[in-house]
């Protein structure tokens, strides 16, 4: 079986590669951005440098980063690790600021109440501030997810296979079918990531839905 000249099995395996390359950095990036964002917020002098630094990272075009990382990490140019690291960097760049903003959106009286009840700063972060910051962080995560999914396809140019491989294959064979299929698959994947994050957010923030019925 094949779709527009591409065997179904190949579409499936490229899709799995794509999910792995775009999704794993999202998780790692989020885990790194939380302490960074918290640090930026609690140590004011860190805020400027951290936000500016991560902002600079975000300006570096993806293809350039895919090519530079092997030189820095000592990996092979074809190694998917380069892509994973690059996407993680982008995610961290985008989310650090979001996490800082999200945490600072927690009302001060809530923070003070938690402190008054005897929470240590770390437990307060985990038990009170992070849950309340979920809506803001989730909005940032959705942006990161959608742009990760579309950026990863550029990695086809350095020979790392995922849905973007359909673009280069199609172009080399002068065939429109695989390219269009790749675009559709990639956009669909982005939408699925988006919906998944939305769903998880809903589950994590029951008070949001309870507050505004209708």
């Amino acid at each position: 079986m094949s779709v527009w000249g591409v065997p179904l099995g190949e579409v499936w395996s490229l899709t799995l590669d794509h999910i792995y390359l775009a999704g794993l950095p999202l998780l790692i990036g989020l885990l790194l951005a939380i302490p960074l964002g918290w640090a930026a917020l609690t140590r004011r002098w860190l805020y400027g440098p951290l936000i500016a630094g991560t902002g600079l990272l975000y300006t570096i075009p993806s293809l350039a980063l895919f090519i530079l990382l092997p030189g820095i990490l000592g990996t092979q140019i074809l190694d998917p690790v380069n892509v994973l690291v690059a996407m993680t960097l982008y995610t961290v760049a985008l989310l650090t600021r979001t996490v800082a903003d999200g945490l600072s959106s927690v009302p001060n009286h809530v923070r003070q109440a938690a402190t008054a009840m005897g929470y240590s700063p770390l437990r307060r972060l985990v038990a009170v501030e992070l849950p309340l910051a979920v809506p803001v962080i989730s909005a940032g995560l959705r942006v990161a997810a959608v742009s990760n999914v579309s950026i990863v396809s550029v990695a086809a140019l350095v020979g790392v296979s995922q849905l973007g491989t359909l673009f280069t294959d199609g172009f080399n064979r002068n065939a429109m079918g695989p390219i269009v299929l790749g675009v559709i698959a990639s956009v669909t994947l982005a939408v699925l990531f988006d919906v998944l994050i939305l769903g998880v957010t809903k589950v994590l923030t029951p008070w949001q839905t309870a507050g505004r019925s209708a």
Partner: protein
Amino acid sequence: MISLVGEWLTDPANWSGARGIWAQLVTHLQLSFLALFLAALIAVPLGLYIGHTGRGRVVVVNLAGGFRAVPSLGVLFIAVLLLLPRLSGEAAFVVPSVIVLVVLAIPPVLSGVYAGVQQVDPAARDAARGMGMTGGQVLTQVEIPCALPLIFSGLRSAMLQIIATATIAAVVGLGGLGRFLIDGQATRDYAEMAGGALLVAGLALTVDFVFGLAQRLVVSPGLARAE
């Protein structure tokens, strides 16, 4: 490996000539500014109109979000395959690429301009009209100046998108710094690839920095604290 990259970057022979670094840098900049100019030509008036009237704002919001999901490489290939048979000579590479650059730059500019105008304090707008400003005066003296911070961030993210996509477009034959990344890979010359990648990164950072400076000069300090 790093010393090889350094050697490539410091070799004067690589900088001169019609295919040298200087020439490609100029090409890259020309293409990027041309694309940004064309995108702004379309998106700025449209964004001002939508922000001013509130008509069609659903389109803007969804457009900006939706376009992020579209893989630029795929769109680029589709444009080339569609247009290549109809064009000849250098235009065959340039025209499809520039079209894609423009199309991808429109959403960020549009949403920046729209959001900028839309967030102008309604009381300030009302006061402007109440003091006897005409519609055009309200737009040029109040709405646009107040929208500038967000207009700038729209232009900056559009420009980064353009520079990155123009780099990729070397694969379909477009000139610019992307040539070194793509040609280097074809000849398995990592020094050239990495040297080119450093140049591209440097270009993006520099252009963004210059835009940041321009923003500081143009945007009123009265708006800085609200940013």
